[in-house]
């Protein structure tokens, strides 16, 4: 018997925010866990509630021209529909802008932004997703709204994602709600390199009024946005940053 009930697709689910979100949602939803890291995916599934109820989709988002087809084939093969998407997959490139190459641009835009376009576009198609998409959450960043040295590409990629989110919210209402979570620094493997620098770690402790973020805090916000309790919220950049961007105190 093909299982035709609806799943939540989480990209970048092998680590960090994606993994924490998967573990949280696994108690109440059936999940498609996506990542390019197959080992990490298996570990995430092992940590989930009722592991056997979730599907793994291993795919490298950099293979962008094959993404649409691969996702369609996966849905057909597993006979499942996706009603919710959480796009957590993302990379960080820190470079002074004069050192930026077209390859850098292409890579970060592909993973952080273009892949979201391709996935949403495919999930909206009647074949194979049956018009089931209802909810989208993008993981964005406060670097989408503000600048930082060396972060031009990261800011641009998250800015593109947020602008896409707003357009989608309008185009897809009232059927699909679309929001993004604008996050401050969260303790993940991706942030480890920055946090290894004692100077940066000290500055973070000072700048984050509520302390550094944990992946769990993000999972809470994702769970809320996907739920009916957020039924009147769409097209929003919800800032979840421990107070990092509100503090205008003279230092």
């Amino acid at each position: 018997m093909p299982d035709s009930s609806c799943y939540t697709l989480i990209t970048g689910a092998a680590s960090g925010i994606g993994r924490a979100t998967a573990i949280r949602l696994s108690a109440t939803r059936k999940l498609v866990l996506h990542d390019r890291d197959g080992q990490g995916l298996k570990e995430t599934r092992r940590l989930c509630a009722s592991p056997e109820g979730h599907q793994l989709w291993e795919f490298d988002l950099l293979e962008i021209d094959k993404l649409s087809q691969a996702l369609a084939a996966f849905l057909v093969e597993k006979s499942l529909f996706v009603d919710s998407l959480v796009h957590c997959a993302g990379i960080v490139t820190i470079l002074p802008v004069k050192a930026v190459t077209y390859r850098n641009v292409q890579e970060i835009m592909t993973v952080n932004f273009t892949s979201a376009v391709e996935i949403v576009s495919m999930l909206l198609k009647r074949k194979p997703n049956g018009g089931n998409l209802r909810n989208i959450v993008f993981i964005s960043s406060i670097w989408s709204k503000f600048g930082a040295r060396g972060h031009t590409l990261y800011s641009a990629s998250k800015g593109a994602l947020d602008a896409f989110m707003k357009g989608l919210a309008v185009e897809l209402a009232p059927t699909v709600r679309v929001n993004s979570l604008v996050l401050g620094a969260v303790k993940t493997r991706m942030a480890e390199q920055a946090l290894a620098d004692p100077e940066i770690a000290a500055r973070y402790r000072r700048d984050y009024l509520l302390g550094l973020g944990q992946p769990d805090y993000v999972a809470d916000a994702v769970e809320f946005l996907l739920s009916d309790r957020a039924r009147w919220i769409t097209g929003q950049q919800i800032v979840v940053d421990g107070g990092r961007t509100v503090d205008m105190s003279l230092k």
Partner: protein
Amino acid sequence: MDEFYTKLAEILEVDEVREDSQLESFPAWDSLGVLAAIAMIDSSYGVNLTSTELTGVKTVGEFARLVESRRKA
């Protein structure tokens, strides 16, 4: 390694660098400058270095030799 010296000079915002130039003496050799240099040797020479591996490197010449040795390895 003339090409390496030219590319490094560009990153360090100077006309030229010498083998015995101290990296720390260039104002542009800050955290972003280091990242730019790491990206340059990756894309130009296929050599992957971390910023930690560069902490012991004091001169332009030492840097060039490190890159050269990694290319052969």
